[in-house]
């Protein structure tokens, strides 16, 4: 499947409200192509339901929050 990088950049940027200046656009498209070329190495790797995230949440107890620090 070929990827329309222009369309990808425009759609995602619009969703985020992120303007891309004309002078930045060629570089952004170049990096999108780079990372899209790398992504299959991650996305094609078979993982099962038991393979959890490397990003682990630590619950916050009331005593962990300093007075007025719940920002």
């Amino acid at each position, binding site marked *: 499947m070929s990827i329309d990088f222009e369309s*990808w*950049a425009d759609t*995602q*940027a619009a969703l*985020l*409200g*992120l*303007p*891309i*200046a004309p002078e*930045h656009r060629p*570089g*952004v498209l*170049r*990096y*999108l192509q780079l*990372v899209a070329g*790398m*992504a299959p*190495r*991650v*996305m094609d*790797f078979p*993982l099962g339901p038991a*393979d*959890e*995230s*490397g*990003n682990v949440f*630590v619950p*916050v107890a009331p005593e*962990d929050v*300093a007075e007025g620090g719940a920002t």
Partner: protein
Amino acid sequence: MTALNQVRAALARIEATDAKVNAFTAVLAERALARAQALDAAGQATPLAGMPFAVKNLFDLQGLPTLAGSKIEREAAPAARDAALVRRLEAAGAICVGALNMDEYAYGFTTENSQYGPTCNPHDLKRISGGSSGGSAAAVAAGQVPLTLGSDTNGSIRVPASLCGVFGLKPTFGRLPRSGTYPFVASLDHLGPFAGNVRDLALAYDAMQGVDADDPAQARRAVEPTVAHLGRGSDGLRIGVLGGWFQRMANAAALAAVQQCAQALGTDRIVEWPEVDRARTAAFMITNAEGAALHLADLKRRASDFEPLSRDRFIAGALLPAAWLVQAQRLRHWFARQVAASFRDVDVVLAPATPCTAPEIGTEWLEIAGQRMPARASMGLLTQPVSAIGLPVVSVPLWGLDAAQPHLPIGVQVIAAPWREDLALRVAQVLEHSGLARAPKAHGL
């Protein structure tokens, strides 16, 4: 030597050399001299005994805006107090003399900073210092200070340590508190020291350990001192050399450095980690997406104020599909489990820290193992898979192995299982005492 004399000597060396090296973005002479006088007057013995140090400018220093290498953060309010690790080093008797140059927001491996200028390699001023903690490595290599702090998300301690020829320690992910520092990628950021010898590295590391309530992401580990164990050597340790990716993506000098260390340690054992390239890619994607999300507000308002070398990469990172980031985090965890299993059979493994010695400033492309590769990103090819899973690493510098550039150093990563900084430091000291690994100050500055 009194603290005051140590600080005066450091300030004089900075004054004499920094116009050439460009390691410092702020020198805190008044503060440092006052602290040195107070320390001498107190007359108490401290572990770091008046040792001058400096920090990458993403560490908070009271009264200064925390630049993180950027133009944008110049407008930030001055920090109300020092970062936790700065306070801990000063409590142990070290004295902060200033802040150091870096790649903007730590997104780079070269410290070619368009706002503050490149930090030059003290051993060859036309070459890069490495990054993103380039100022931290260069300041030690130039003999400006004996100790610095930096950060390492994908290699930003180990790459400049390798290219500038100094020792660097990236502790286990979560070991040291990050309170009071400007983040890059919370999932991957580590802090750690650089020094001219392994003992100073371990002294500083020991002084910085311990839980800090201000850092919710820090692991709740007890202090595990290392200095007392340094002299135990490598006897009884099972040591291997990482094969596969770590040999394929390295030039001759990097391979020779690892080979010399393996010989000195009496090992020819090869250890293979599975799917290293996929793990490195996962770290690349996590970095790109998380780093971009952190800066999204400024990317919307003032993208032109970002570093041109990393701005477009940041913008692209904001546009990645969420499923890529989630899968990358899951793959990272899978890889950590595979590598943990491999540490049942080995205590320490060796790998090159960089694929090659320091390229010249402005280099766009390099040949690595016969392939034409983008120079800046490729400096982290061999460090990124290791920090992706938070292993502790000491980078040790070797010399004279690049036939074309024999005056340049190159580093070897001494890697241990999580929480075993003690083993990596012991092996690093064996290599130092053998004479192979050393960090001479640069001549002729």
